[in-house]
C-alpha cells in the first residue's frame, strides 16, 4: 500500500495562493474610482454581454476580475442575498458591509476547503449620500477583505495602475475627469505589460512603456453608482456616451 506524500499546510496554502494569483494576473484590469457624485467602475472588457461590472442592489455594485464562471456565480449569489434580505427586512437594510462579509466567508471557505481556489478578485462598493459615506471593499481569492478609499485597481497590471493612480488621483473629481484618469491608468498598465512582454521576447529590449497609449471605447465597460439618481443608483454608460466623454 502506498502512502501519500506528506505536504505541509504552509506549502498547500502557498501553492493555492500562487495558483490563484497567477490566474488573476493573466486577466485584464478593472479600476474603481470615487468621484464627486459617486463611484465609477472602468473595466477593460471587449465583450458587450459578459459583464465584469454589475448592479447588486440600490446603491451597491460589484466589479470582478479573474475567471468569468467563478465571479459570475459569486455575483448571482450576491444578488440573491441582497434581494432576499431586502425583501424580508427592508431595502435600507441591505449594506455593502454585509455583502462584503458574506463574500469573504464564501471565498475563505472555498480557499481552504476546495482543492482549487477561486481565481477571482472582487470589489463591492456602496455609494452613500455624501462622499464620506462611500464604501469600497476589496476581496481577494483567500477571503481577505480590505476597506479601500479613493481608488482600487485589480487584475493583470494592478501594481502599475495603483502606482499611476497614487500619483494622479485627487478626490472630488467630476465624472468625465475621473473616467479619463481611470482609462489612462488602465492604458498605462497595459503599456507596461506589453513592454515587459516585448522585453521577454527580446524583440525590442529598449522599448519604453508608452504612457499615452489609449484604449478604444469599444474595449471598455463603464458603469457608475451615481448618488444623484433616485433609488437604483447603478447605471451603465452606453458606448455612444462613452466615446463622447472620452473625446471631449
Amino acid at each position: 500500500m502506498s502512502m501519500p506524500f506528506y505536504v505541509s499546510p504552509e506549502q498547500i496554502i502557498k501553492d493555492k495562493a500562487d495558483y490563484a494569483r497567477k490566474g488573476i494576473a493573466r486577466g485584464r484590469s478593472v479600476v474603481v474610482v470615487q468621484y464627486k457624485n459617486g463611484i465609477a467602475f472602468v473595466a477593460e472588457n471587449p465583450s458587450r454581454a459578459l459583464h465584469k461590472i454589475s448592479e447588486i442592489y440600490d446603491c451597491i455594485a460589484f466589479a470582478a476580475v479573474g475567471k468569468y464562471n467563478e465571479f459570475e456565480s459569486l455575483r448571482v449569489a450576491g444578488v440573491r442575498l441582497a434581494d432576499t434580505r431586502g425583501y424580508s427586512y427592508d431595502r435600507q437594510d441591505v449594506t455593502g458591509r454585509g455583502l462584503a462579509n458574506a463574500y469573504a466567508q464564501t471565498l475563505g471557505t472555498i480557499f481552504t476547503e476546495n482543492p482549487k481556489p477561486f481565481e477571482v478578485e472582487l470589489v463591492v462598493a456602496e455609494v452613500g449620500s455624501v462622499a464620506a459615506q462611500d464604501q469600497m471593499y476589496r476581496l481577494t481569492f483567500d477571503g481577505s477583505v480590505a476597506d479601500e478609499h479613493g481608488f482600487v485597481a485589480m487584475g493583470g497590471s494592478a501594481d502599475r495602475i495603483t502606482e499611476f493612480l497614487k500619483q494622479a488621483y485627487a478626490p472630488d473629481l467630476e465624472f468625465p475627469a475621473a473616467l479619463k484618469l481611470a482609462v489612462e491608468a488602465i492604458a498605462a498598465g497595459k503599456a507596461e505589460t506589453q513592454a515587459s512582454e516585448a522585453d521577454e521576447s527580446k524583440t525590442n529590449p529598449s522599448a519604453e512603456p508608452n504612457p499615452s497609449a489609449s484604449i478604444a471605447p469599444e474595449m471598455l465597460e463603464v458603469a457608475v453608482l451615481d448618488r444623484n439618481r433616485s433609488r437604483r443608483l447603478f447605471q451603465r454608460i452606453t458606448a455612444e456616451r462613452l466615446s463622447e466623454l472620452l473625446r471631449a
Partner: protein
Amino acid sequence: MTPGVSSFTDFLRMHDPSLLPSGRSMGSMPSTSPIDVPHGTTIVAMKYAGGIVMAGDRRATMGNVIASRDIEKVFATDEFSCVGIAGTAGVALEIVRLFQVELEHYEKIEGVLLSLDGKANRLASMLRSNLTMAMQGLAVVPLFGGFDLATQVGRIFSYDVTGGRYEEYDHHSIGSGSMFARGALKKMWQPDMDQASAVSVAIGALYDAADDDSATGGPDLTRGIYPVVAAVDDNGYRRIDDTELEPVIRTLITDRTTDSGGYRGVGGHS
C-alpha cells in the same frame, strides 16, 4: 446556490418558502366566515397615443368602515410597467412587493428586462399560487399595464383570482366601483387621446365610481388627497404629481357642478 434560476420567487421557494405569500399554511380556517380586513377598491386603466394611464382611488374599506383614506393602490413595478390592486389589501401589497423584487431580480441576473408578456405571465402565476387564500376570502385581483418595448405600444392586462390573464384593449377597470367606472370610460374614452386627456378621463371615471360606490373614495379637496395617477410610455413610468392633478380635479368638479352630469336633486336646479 443553484445556477440558472433567474426567478426570485422560485429561488425563495427552494431557499425559504416561509417568505412567500403562498408559503404560509392557513390551517383549517373555515372558508365560510372571511375575516374582516381592509379591501382596496377601484382601479382604472386606459391606453392613449404613446402609452397607458392607470389611476386608483385612495380608499380602503373594512366592511362599512373606511380603513384608510390615503392608501396607495397603483405602483410602479419596474421602469416600464405598473400594477393597480383591488381586493384584500394586505395580501395584494405583499404580492406587489414580491412582484417588484421578481422583476428587478430577473433584470439584474439576466442583464435584460423581462418582456411585457413575460411580466404579465409572472404576475398570473403569482396569483395562481394565492388561490387557496382566495378560496378563503382573501382574494386579490390586480390590473397590470406597461409599455411594450418590443412593439412600442402600451398594453393592459386584467386577471381573475385563479391566475387567468386577459389582455384588455382600449380600457379597463377593476374593483368594487368598476361597474360605474367602466360605464364612464365607455362614454369618455377615445382612441389616440393624448396623455393629459387620458389623465382627466381617468379622474372622471374614478369620480363617477365614487359617486355610486360607497367603497370608492372621491378626490378629497379638504385634505388634499387625490387619486394616484401614473402614466407609462417610452420614457418609462411617471407618477402624475398632485400639483399637476389639482387643476384637473378642480376643472372636473366645476364641470360637474354646472353640467347635468352633476344632478343635484330636487331644488338643486337653478
